[in-house]
């Protein structure tokens, strides 16, 4: 049997969760929880990056499921100003082992790079897209299976 064609969609958006780091952390936990639950059921994998009030998310999987998940995300009021920066068929998954990996930059050097990448994405630069994809890949892979830490949130909020 031929496996279904894989698609990937990458978007950036701005945080619309109000409140301090604690509330944001709580909401992020919820987001990740439900993403992981729903995604593994639907064969969706990907990664979420949160930094300085912005999200970047990669979603990959079969198109019909991807559309479902993306539409649910689009109706979510916890973020706004959604910019899709990449969308199309892919040969292989970037995050095959993650129903939803999470990355929040932990060291100041990362933060600066990610902030810059977000900035160029929101200002419409194509260069920013690649920059962000690379960073996302790098952060998730380098950090490995690390959990959400208060430390990371303090830095990224």
């Amino acid at each position: 049997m031929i496996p279904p064609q894989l698609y990937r969609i990458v978007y950036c958006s701005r945080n619309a969760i109000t409140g301090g780091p604690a509330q944001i952390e709580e909401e992020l936990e919820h987001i990740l929880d439900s993403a992981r639950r729903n995604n593994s059921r639907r064969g969706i994998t990907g990664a979420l990056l949160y930094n300085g009030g912005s999200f970047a998310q990669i979603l990959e999987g079969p198109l019909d499921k991807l559309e479902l998940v993306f539409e649910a995300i689009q109706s979510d009021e916890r973020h706004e100003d959604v910019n899709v920066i990449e969308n199309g068929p892919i040969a292989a998954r970037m995050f095959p082992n993650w129903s939803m990996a999470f990355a929040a930059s932990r060291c100041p050097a990362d933060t600066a790079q990610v902030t810059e990448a977000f900035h160029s994405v929101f200002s419409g630069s194509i260069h920013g897209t690649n920059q962000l994809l690379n960073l996302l890949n790098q952060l998730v892979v380098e950090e490995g299976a690390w959990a959400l830490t208060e430390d990371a949130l303090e830095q990224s909020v």
Partner: protein
Amino acid sequence: MVIDSPSAQLPAPLPALALLSALQEVRDGILVYHANQEVVRISPQAARLLGAGPEIPRRLEDLFGGCAEADGAKEVLAYLNSERAPEAERILALPPGGQVVRLHWRELDGDYRIAFVDPVDSAQDRDFLTNIATRRSFESQLKGILAAGGRSVAVLLVDLDRFKAVNDELGHAMGDTLLKRVAERMRSAVRTTDVVARFGGDEFAILLDGVEDASVLSGTASRVIDRLRRPFLIEGRLISVGASIGIATALSNAGGSNASDSHVILQSADLALYESKSAGGNCFRLYDPRMRAEAEARRNGELDLRRALAARQFELHFQPQVDLEGRLRWFEALIRWRHPERGLIPPLDFLPLAERFGLMGSIGEWVLRTACQEAAQWPSAIGVAVNATTAQITDPQFPAIVRRALKLSGLAPSRLEIEVTEGSLMANPEAGRANLEELQAIGVQFAIDDFGTGYASLSQLVGLPFDKVKIDRCLSGSEGDSPKKRALIRAITELSKQLGMASLVEGVENAEQIERLMQDGCEMLQGYYIGRPAPAEEVRRFVHDLEEAAPIFDEKGSAA
């Protein structure tokens, strides 16, 4: 004597449960449940409407757990379990196996609740595509609220921006999917008790009941706009639309409202919608009485224009175009409106209005016919140039209209030149090109007008088979001797020559300009210095005196 008091026979207060045995008998759809979600009793009619089998379901979720999407199960259950049941709140539900019903609950004693289950004629109250309310159901709910009185109500009319383009480009199936998603997103952006309806096409409406605070209103409108401007992913394609919203509010006063109020509030919202569309879309506007006055003025303007067309108040003036030998070659036909009160009105003051009212087609056709008839009376060496709008040049009927004008007048096609602007061809290059090629095949000439004002795309010149390029006055005018502008003129004339097109410069106002333009390679001239636009009779007399198309200025460039 014993008087049998009726009240003495009834236990007081009447326990809710005492009613229940009577339910078997009633014809109404009634559901009694406990606040802990247990179904206590259900009337046969309610069981039928909700699609319940002979075995009475034990809990609410067994009845409503599989409700269809638009008012999902969660929303229905949340409504039935909400803390209070305000007077007019209702929710539509489509239970599995049942039909579309309207639910409406009330408190009974001891934490019991009674829900009235009314059938909804789904064909008329539910939109077949999106499964949200229809215009009919929206209006009846609006009337209900207004009649009940005492509450403020808001109507938001939501119109998608660019939906037609999506539908045309991607097909109706994807357009339909998009409309379904739009309906879902709108529902997700409002409270469960708000009514979301589709009025038809890409027109939606939201009914907010009991909005006391303007910030709630603008918050809702902004949320809807934000949700709808987020891209949609459909069959792997990202689709972006936007939404314009017009809002009108009313405070319903008991006794003070009547049936026409719902009509007025919808009309006001529509005027506000018009404003947000005119502002470019992706925004909302709140109704303001000023809008009604402006709409009135627009309507008067429209009537005026229609009358002008019927009463033949339009006339054509003609401005000469000459070659470098000073020979008269073409007249450009320019429309004027001789208004009975306002005098002669230039085209820029009324054509945009005509375009908006959809009158351009009739006006354009009149111009073509009149211009051809006029030119047919001139010497055969002189042709007529007619401007065509975007709507005309992309209209599939355009070639037929042109052929008819030529046939009626007997004018040779090669004596008709159609001027189109860069922008109008960019609007729909395929339709425009097809029309252009069809007419060119029979000998009609084409000129690109106002070149240099828009994109001044040289590739456009190469891509489309024009016969003439009209270089805009902004490049040739009094400050036209700047080296940059002259270089641009030279580039355009040179390129035109190589592509076999004539070049004409507009806005020629003095002799020095002619000298300069000759050096820069221009082949034809038009402007006040050459000749002002003149009425048809004057032009007719002029060309008859001039049988042989003699030079109207000598070789040094000064007027004869």
